[in-house]
């Protein structure tokens, strides 16, 4: 029974993907429906499994077959549906279904409609493998698979070379992180002779081998590097903003809600390893906090609607990493879930806007859209309020918990996180005001084209907006269902030592609300009262310009890494390869020349052949009977 559940969960999206890739052209509009149904089935299976596990408190396990078996070391192709993976599966397949539904309208008329859904289903398949794998190697398959799908979907409109470059950038950046992940896997395999999560956990919990702590630290650091790549943290974050080249639903699904949270998932999955590496945890917290601030500050001045959301995603992921660094895994998971709701809603909303604007993404050409797109405007506003921390919406609770944890552990990082939150409130409302308020600034042609999106696009928006409002209920401060639920998975669970909400907690909530108001009012004064519109690219000066150009990080990376690698590559091409191929071709030339000369002996003169024949026999006879 258990194996059947897992197989059904896995194979339905894979089947949908294969059908769409091979028969997508023939199916036409049917391919979108098939893909959506495939993910919906996975979602239903997940819900059934979730209800079962939530009732019995025992994870569903299933080994499909023995995969690699050598002496003392074996890896089975097994899957583990425990509390953590089911939680992830719920929102991966749930939001996945909504985004598939949304895509059926958004991608309508695209020449590669079937292929798009094929890739999207393939992504869901790999994401399920990543989340449900019972050992690190299975997770790694999923990890690489989602990277591949991300690459394919970023470069989906492959006729634009910039998009192809963005896809390659994402893939290569991820490869750097993947190498770290792989090294971590090797170290863990070396230490425990197993990659199974349960086995490693048991080995560590028995607590007999404290002398290997250095190695554990190395493994944790390596895996954290993998998480940095996938979850777009400093210094490997630059691929995520560029990844916005893909279709907007892809950005919502892969680059906001699911794939980029894989790093958080992995660290939470291996929380028992990270607990033993306090130095690595500190690093995670610092990297997370700085990423949150850094990305938020870039987000302040971006004018591309999707770029703002991309930097916002990086910033929010930074906050999650900060929570993980403090060992508050439940809080990070909580923020992952609420973030998945409101960020998916924001991306889908921006997709709706871009759809209405006929592909325009620059906020300077928008404005006043609230009159034309009521549903999009209201859902977008709700999600914005949620991400900015409007009291009692989902984002308020999750972000507040992160800041509360930070306040307990490290005041400096708390301040950084708070500043990032104020910035978040500012740039999100800036986005809303510039897009939906004041007069329309685009062309007359665009104005005539403005329309609300069809029901299949607004329905996911409404569902996600509702989830953004009520998502916070799963971890109500003081009596958190989520903490209780995750208790079996997380070793140092917060549920083990609950503490009542004191004065401090209420004070922090108040501070967070004030921060939210500061950001809101700041944006309101600037873009509603003064009705400012961001300047054109060539008029931007000073620090604003530095921010607008993303601190020139791309340029610095270009100078620091890309150019030297090009120089090395050019050296190898012009010197080493020329020398090597010269040697190889030289040998070939010699053989060629010899054969040309030898060819002349074959002149077709039978008399000569006969003479050579007799002469040869004479030589042989001479050698055999006389010379020897």
């Amino acid at each position: 029974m258990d194996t059947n559940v897992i197989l059904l969960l896995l194979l339905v999206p894979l089947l949908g993907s294969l059908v769409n890739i091979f028969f997508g052209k023939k199916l036409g509009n049917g391919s979108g429906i098939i893909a959506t149904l495939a993910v919906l089935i996975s979602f239903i299976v997940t819900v059934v499994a979730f209800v079962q596990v939530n009732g019995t408190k025992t994870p569903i396990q299933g080994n499909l077959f023995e995969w690699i078996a050598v002496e003392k070391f074996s890896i089975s192709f097994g899957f583990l549906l425990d509390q953590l993976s089911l939680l992830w599966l719920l929102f991966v397949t749930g939001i996945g279904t909504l985004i598939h539904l949304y895509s059926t309208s958004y991608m309508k008329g695209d020449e590669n409609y079937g292929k798009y859904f094929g890739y999207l289903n393939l992504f869901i398949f790999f994401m399920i493998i990543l989340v449900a794998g019972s050992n690190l190697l299975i997770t790694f398959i999923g990890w690489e698979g989602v990277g591949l799908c991300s690459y394919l979907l970023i470069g989906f409109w492959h006729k634009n070379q910039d998009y192809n470059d963005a896809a390659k950038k994402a893939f290569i950046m991820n490869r750097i992180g993947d190498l770290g992940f792989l090294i971590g896997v090797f170290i863990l395999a070396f230490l425990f002779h197993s990659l199974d999560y349960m086995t490693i956990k048991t080995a560590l919990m028995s607590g007999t081998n404290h002398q290997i702590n250095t190695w554990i630290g190395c493994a944790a650091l390596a895996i954290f590097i993998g998480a940095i790549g996938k979850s777009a943290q400093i210094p490997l974050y630059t691929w995520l903003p560029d990844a916005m080249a893909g279709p907007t639903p892809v950005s919502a699904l892969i680059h906001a809600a699911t794939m980029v949270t894989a790093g958080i998932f992995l660290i939470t999955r291996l929380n028992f390893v990270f607990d033993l590496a306090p130095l690595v945890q500190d690093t995670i917290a610092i990297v997370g906090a700085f990423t949150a601030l850094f990305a938020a500050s870039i987000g302040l001045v971006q004018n591309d609607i999707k770029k703002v959301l991309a930097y916002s995603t990086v910033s929010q992921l930074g906050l999650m990493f900060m929570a993980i660094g403090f060992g508050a895994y439940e809080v990070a998971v909580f923020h992952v879930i609420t973030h998945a709701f409101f960020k998916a809603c924001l991306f889908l909303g921006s997709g709706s806007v871009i759809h209405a604007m006929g592909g325009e993404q620059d906020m300077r050409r928008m404005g006043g859209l609230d009159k034309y797109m009521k549903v999009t405007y209201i859902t977008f506003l709700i999600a914005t309020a949620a991400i900015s921390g409007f009291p009692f919406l989902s984002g308020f609770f999750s972000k507040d918990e992160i800041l509360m944890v930070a306040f307990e552990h490290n005041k400096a990082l708390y301040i950084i996180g708070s500043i990032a939150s104020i910035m978040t409130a500012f740039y999100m409302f800036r986005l809303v005001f510039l897009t939906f308020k004041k007069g329309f600034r685009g062309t007359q042609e665009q104005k005539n084209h403005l329309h609300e999106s069809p029901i299949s696009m607004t329905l996911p928006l409404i569902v996600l907006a509702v989830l953004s409002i009520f998502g916070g209920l799963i971890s109500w401060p003081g009596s958190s269902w989520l903490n209780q639920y995750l208790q079996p998975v997380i070793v140092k669970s917060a549920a083990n030592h609950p503490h009542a909400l004191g004065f401090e907690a209420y004070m922090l909530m108040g501070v967070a609300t004030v921060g939210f108001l500061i950001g809101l009012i700041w944006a309101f004064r600037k873009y509603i009262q003064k009705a400012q519109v961001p300047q054109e690219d060539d008029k931007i000066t000073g620090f604003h310009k530095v921010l607008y150009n993303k601190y020139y990080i791309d340029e610095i990376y270009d100078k620091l890494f890309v150019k030297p690698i090009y120089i090395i590559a050019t050296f190898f091409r012009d010197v080493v390869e020329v020398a090597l191929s010269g040697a190889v071709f030289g040998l070939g030339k010699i053989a060629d020349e010899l054969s040309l000369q030898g060819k002349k002996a074959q002149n077709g003169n039978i008399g000569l052949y006969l003479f050579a024949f007799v002469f040869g026999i004479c030589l042989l006879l001479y050698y055999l009977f006389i010379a020897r």
Partner: protein
Amino acid sequence: MENVIEIIGIDKYIYLSIILFCIGVFGILYRRNAIVMFMCIEIMLNSANMLLVAFSTFHQDAEGQVFVFFTMAVAAAEVAVGLAILVTIYRNIGSIDIDKLKNLKG
């Protein structure tokens, strides 16, 4: 009845067969007429046959003579094929001078 070998001596047979063989070889090398070359090959073959027969008698062993019979049978077949080829060549190019047969040039 006296043995032929005892009257003449085995060494004479060997010399004769060497001479015949060399005549064949030089004929092959110097003549350009394909039929003559063909005859030279036959001379070489028969010199070897003669040597076989001579030694067979010398050793009082019939095996060599049986062997010669087989050789002759095969040679006869080979002559039939060879002459057929020569006739075809003559029909095609009107000559059997091997200097004109240079189509196998590499």
